């Protein structure tokens, strides 16, 4: 097997708070193969965005390793890291706050090229800007517009063009379509899939929307309170979810059809508990319908139950569900 493009080993990120360490990402090991998309799903506060940022070293991890092409980038110094950053980019959730309101569209897209000095002169940089705008489907007439003049979908296209400016290999997409209307959302998702086909990009797609992730991902990792509770190829996960949280998450999505009206009956109770100093054992236990003693006595590890299908659940382990 070839080296995966991205691999994390026991990645941890704790934030210190007055109440104690907040376990935002707690011992997560994932791999992303070159040219594939890993969808990371979970509710707000489960650490999915923090993980994306930690992998890019926009946040320094507390512990663990991040391997890019087999190299541990956490050991890199500043200069090496600058070189690395050309290969890994991020698209942010909110196209309203992630663009500088005082820069024109062309300047926003040109900025990474200026910072990293990949192209020698202005002429070539702005020629590349034109090319990028074409790639992401932005009309030439917006070159000198400012972000506030454009709608959400177009703004998100600027964010994508900026991420592509340095010909990256790997892009973290941090909820890139959550702030958009459905009809625009579909346009952006198609664009991201086209770009992946044409440029062989590798994505880590962070979202809370399971239906979005199903379309774009090849593999899905479900996160709950900083831990990965289930990881499987996309079809397998939707066909046979094993972890009770994954099952609950899938059944909670309101389906646009009248046939599934009763589906809302078996919703999970309660809310995500506090990630500061979490108790040992399964973190989903307080909300889980199948909870028993085994769930709370030990920390759980992901174990393989089918081809590439990993679950961290004491009950699945015992064959009880």
């Amino acid at each position: 097997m070839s080296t995966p493009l991205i691999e994390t080993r026991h990645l941890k990120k704790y934030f210190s708070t007055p109440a104690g360490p907040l376990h935002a990402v707690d011992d997560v090991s994932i791999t992303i193969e070159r040219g594939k998309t890993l969808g990371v799903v979970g509710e707000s506060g489960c650490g999915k965005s923090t993980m994306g940022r930690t992998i890019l070293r926009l946040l320094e991890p507390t512990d663990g390793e991040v391997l890019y092409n087999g190299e541990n980038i956490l050991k890199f110094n500043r200069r090496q890291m600058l070189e690395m950053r050309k290969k890994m980019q991020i698209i942010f959730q909110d196209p309203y706050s992630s663009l500088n309101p005082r820069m024109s569209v062309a300047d926003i897209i040109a900025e990474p090229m200026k910072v990293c000095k990949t192209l020698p002169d202005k002429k070539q940089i702005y020629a590349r800007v034109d090319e990028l705008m074409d790639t992401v489907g932005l009309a030439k007439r917006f070159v000198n517009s400012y972000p506030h003049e454009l709608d959400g979908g177009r703004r998100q296209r600027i964010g994508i063009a900026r991420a592509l400016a340095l010909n990256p290999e790997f892009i973290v997409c941090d909820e890139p379509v959550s702030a958009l209307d459905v009809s625009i959302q579909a346009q952006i998702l198609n664009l991201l899939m086209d770009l992946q086909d044409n440029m062989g990009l590798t994505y880590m797609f962070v979202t809370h929307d399971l239906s979005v992730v199903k379309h774009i991902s090849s593999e899905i990792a479900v996160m709950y309170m900083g831990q990965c509770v289930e990881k499987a190829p996309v079809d397998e996960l939707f066909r046979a979810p094993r972890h009770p949280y994954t099952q609950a998450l899938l059944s909670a999505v309101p389906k646009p059809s009248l046939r599934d009206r009763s589906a809302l009956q078996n919703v999970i109770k309660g809310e995500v508990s506090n990630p500061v100093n979490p108790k040992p054992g399964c973190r989903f236990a307080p909300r889980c319908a199948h909870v028993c003693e085994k769930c709370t006595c030990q920390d759980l590890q992901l174990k393989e139950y089918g081809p590439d299908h990993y679950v961290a659940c004491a009950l699945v382990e015992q064959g009880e569900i």
Partner: protein
Amino acid sequence: MDERNVLEIKNLHVIYETDQDTVYAVNGVNLTVKKGKTLGLVGETGAGKTTTALSVMRLLPKKIGYIKEGEIGLDGRNVMELTEGDMRLIRGDTVSMIFQDPMTSLNPVMTVGKQIRESLELHKHGRSEKEIDARVDEMLEMVGIPASRRNDFPHQFSGGMKQRVVIALALACEPKLILADEPTTALDVTIQAQVLQMMNELKVKLNTAMILITHDLGVVAQTCDDVAIMYAGEIIESGTAEDIYEGKQHHPYTVGLFGSIPDMDSKAKRLNPIPGLMPDPTHLPAGCPFAPRCPRCMEICKETKPEIVHFGTHEIKCHLFSGDEKGSEPV
């Protein structure tokens, strides 16, 4: 006004006037909500959904938003003719609103109990102080919050809990109609499912009618009896939930809207978005507002506004169907 309806809107036109432009936000909307039923008002950002709701409450921004034309009948009274003083007696009592963002629609320096109390004190209906206190506790318990938390402040609650408080507030005086403006958009899916389930139960228990404003066709399918789809300030298709979700004929925009939802059950990888954007509400097209994006656009669509075509309860505003008006859904 029909006895069975709690709300009737006829030919409503709303504009926003700014220094440079006039925004045509709502252009000739007709809506009826039957007693105890839920109407889903669906559309994208800027379609005029919230403006329609604010018009019913007469809460359009002052000196900018104007109702140019139209009638709003609420529980047998004409809202347009009421004074501001009358409106204050109606708001929160006959009709109340649930806003999208629970984080900003509660007063951060007032305990939740006091906030619920506030509307009960305004609309006393002869309740004594003790009865009001009991009612506050009852409301909190009803939405699943222990009454002992009545003296907590909003920041002490999670997002889902805050939205429950907002719902308790809206239901406190047992209104005949609730306008819920994207009540679950800011919540996580599992919490959204909890809140929707609770709203479904309370609706039946209190026999309250509701307009549920949302862009999520999934949420509508799970909660609504009737559906109206809005585009650029017009209702382009309406009917019962069965008409919209299972009917055979649809407005091309509805088809596009359903097509662009990522389907959890389908194998297809590519999505089918609607090309283009919603028209600029300051310069609306002369004909059908959807014509510039419509895959089935004809010459007539660009010039004349389509009339509503009726198929029983199902209404579609599109030239494609003019002429085949029948009593029932065509087979």
